[in-house]
């Protein structure tokens, strides 16, 4: 019997020998499951001025690019004082060893020329350690007044080439600009670049405005105005700064409007008596449709990017919680179950997350969760954080933060969805209710 077992074992070993040999041959296989989370070092020397008038612009454009990239938290600029090589010509070869020595992983070189009020900006992105160019050189042309936008476009290209995702720098934000003391605050509708530059006011100071929302194409803005004494939803054409009342039913309050992704439908809240429900209206025909009918307050609706679902807040369970329902109305399912009250949900442009405001234990938080309510994470916490809005690429959230006390003021902040990078957006006055527009 033992001999039979020994013979079988020998046979098995003989058959397995080629497999073992093959497993040991071939390339060395290694799996890496841990990396580092830290910003990538890059260098952006001043863009070369190819004309005398472009000297200052070259410096300014490179600074805006650096601010854009470093503001994401994904990149870290190597200070210009550490540069070994000097880029003196757009076409000169790159001394990669010099940039490797200062650990710059990416290098952005460019040139600016001004001719007859027209600015031309061209740039290249280099992968320093590979010694190759990332993508191809590109150039933009515009007026001298639009140099910041050209700088943002360059930064978007750099961001996209390195991360593989679209950027958000060449985008605008509509918000409520606030001035004056807290008990007599003047609120005006304004639009600005994402970084707080180029603020333009869209409405006067004679009426209270709230909750502006960009359309997906960035051409129109919905907002709530108390121009008539009652809250009314208005739509404003950004190009002409002309606005009109979208829904004019007397004795009815309408607020919290938001465009559908196709731009043809608007969802909003309507209060009739003591009941508030969500309605949808076709902009072209003016026909309305009631989406919820619960005897509770349903408000703050936000479409999913594909337009098939709506997330909203409701107190039907006794406290404010988040619910998701089909875009055509119907049964809603609750997705928030944590402690505290949830409000102002906004669906991410990527469709994978929902941002919200949370109030718990006397503090306010900005958080995100999966669309099924899982993986809730709170990104900020303060005396009053509210009104989140997503960047076009779904990587950053802008919100309003108000400081405590009679002299407290509201200002805008951005935070990336990992919660690591919190940045204040510089605005000339106080600001609240931001709504991030699309990439231009």
């Amino acid at each position, binding site marked *: 019997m033992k001999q039979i077992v020994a013979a079988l074992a020998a046979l098995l070993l003989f058959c397995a020998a080629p497999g073992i*040999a093959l497993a*040991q041959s071939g390339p060395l296989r290694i799996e890496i499951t841990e990396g580092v989370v830290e910003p990538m070092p890059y260098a952006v020397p001043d863009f070369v001025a190819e004309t005398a008038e472009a000297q200052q612009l070259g410096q300014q454009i490179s600074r805006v690019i650096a601010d854009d990239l470093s503001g994401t938290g994904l990149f870290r600029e190597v200070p210009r004082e550490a540069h070994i090589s000097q880029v003196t010509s757009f076409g000169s070869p790159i001394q990669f060893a010099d940039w490797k020595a200062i650990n710059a992983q990416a290098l952005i070189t460019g040139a600016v020329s001004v001719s007859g009020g027209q600015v031309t900006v061209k740039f290249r992105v280099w992968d320093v350690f590979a010694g190759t160019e990332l993508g191809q050189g590109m150039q933009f042309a515009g007026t001298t007044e639009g140099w910041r936008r050209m700088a943002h476009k360059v930064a978007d290209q750099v961001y996209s080439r390195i991360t593989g995702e679209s950027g958000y720098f060449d985008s605008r934000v509509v918000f409520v600009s606030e001035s004056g003391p807290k008990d007599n605050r003047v609120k005006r509708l304004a639009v600005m670049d994402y970084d707080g530059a180029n603020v333009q006011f869209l409405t006067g100071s004679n009426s209270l405005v709230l909750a502006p929302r960009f359309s997906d194409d960035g051409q129109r803005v919905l907002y709530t105005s108390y121009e008539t004494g009652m809250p009314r939803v208005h739509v404003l054409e950004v190009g002409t700064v002309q606005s009109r009342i979208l829904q004019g039913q007397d004795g009815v309050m309408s607020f919290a409007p938001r465009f559908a992704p196709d731009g043809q439908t608007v969802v909003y809240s309507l209060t009739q008596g003591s009941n508030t429900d969500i309605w949808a209206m076709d902009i072209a025909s003016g026909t309305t449709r009631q989406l919820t009918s619960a005897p509770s307050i349903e408000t703050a609706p936000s479409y999913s990017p594909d337009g098939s679902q709506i997330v909203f807040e409701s107190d039907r369970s006794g406290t404010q919680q988040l619910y998701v329902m089909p875009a055509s109305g119907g049964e809603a399912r609750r997705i928030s179950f944590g402690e505290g009250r949830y409000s102002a949900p906004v669906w991410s442009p990527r469709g994978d997350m929902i941002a919200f405001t949370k109030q718990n234990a006397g503090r306010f938080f900005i958080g995100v969760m999966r669309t099924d309510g899982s993986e809730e994470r709170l990104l900020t916490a303060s005396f009053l954080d509210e009104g989140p809005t997503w960047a076009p690429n779904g990587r950053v959230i802008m919100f309003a933060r108000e400081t405590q006390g009679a002299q407290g003021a509201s200002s805008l902040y951005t935070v990336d969805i990992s919660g690591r990078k919190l940045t204040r957006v510089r605005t000339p006055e106080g600001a609240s209710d931001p709504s991030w527009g699309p990439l231009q």
Partner: protein
Amino acid sequence: MHTGHYISGGAHGALILWLLLGGVFDSAPPEMQVADVSILSEAEFAALTQPRAAPVLGAEPEVLPEPEPEEAAPEAPAEESQPQTPPEPEEPAASEPDATPEPIAPVAEPEVAETPPQPPAPEPVPQVEAPEIAARPTPRPAPRVAPQAVPEPEPEAEIAPEVQETVERSETPDSTADEEQEATAPEAAATEIVTEAEEPARAPAASVRPRTRPIRPAPSEVAEQEASPASEPAPAPERPPVQSSDTASAIAGALEEALGGAANGAPEGPPLTDGETNGFRIAVQECWQVDVGSQAANVTVTVGFDLDRSGRVTGALKMLASEGGSGAAAEAAFQSARRAILRCQGNGYDLPKDKYDHWKSVEMTFNPENMRIR
């Protein structure tokens, strides 16, 4: 119709009968171990197991008297020592130990009259190719031990006490008329028994360095050789005949046959240790920057690349596979992995040069699953 059932039933029945009656489950009784025992009386057992009291120490150590070896020394053993029977257990002494224990005299060296025969001078070891032989001479192993070492006789020789050479009939007429006789030689013998434990004395002190691979001609050289008509093709070297007695070639042949030729493509030398592999992994992962909020963080990408002997990447890095995410996300994940590999190589990854065959080609998988935002 039921033929199959009948055959199956019959076969199963036969099998069961064979199992029951064929003694398959009978096992041979284990060998009985027999040991000698002696019987102790109860008093003897008590005396054996009684604990001894610890000695009482005085304030001043007592000076022990000088031992008297002459009186206490036992007699030297006789030349031919007889097997001694174990002494009967004596009655235990009093509860108090003796204050002055008697020293035990050293055992006298027995006088040995016989001197062992001198071993024969070791034969010079023939110089073979590489192995270094230990210097310690070892007696030739032989199954027989005799006072005089005798080398192994010729295969044709018969075993005999005397040595005589072969005498054959000469074909030449003027040869002397010696009588025909067959070669004889005494049986091989050694002066001492050589056990297996002493065999390593002949083992090489250092392992044989593996032969280097033949250098392949570059493709250009091959092309030149083929293109030049003047150069006559060198005659193919004749393959030396494989001798069946050559153990090394026999083993190589058996290996080649067993492995189906896979051994030829396998890297030479020992594989990388876990420490060496982990060192390589850590060196790369320290440079792998993961954008935890990106779509690329959902992509597991496998990158293939080659290293030169200095541990630097040679040639292009290739994305061999990706899992999860869109094409753009996979490309971003690949770029991130590529930057990690290139950035941290410095002057070359620290890998053992003598194991180059094992790491000249690398497939590295970057899996960010543990780093995604939760």
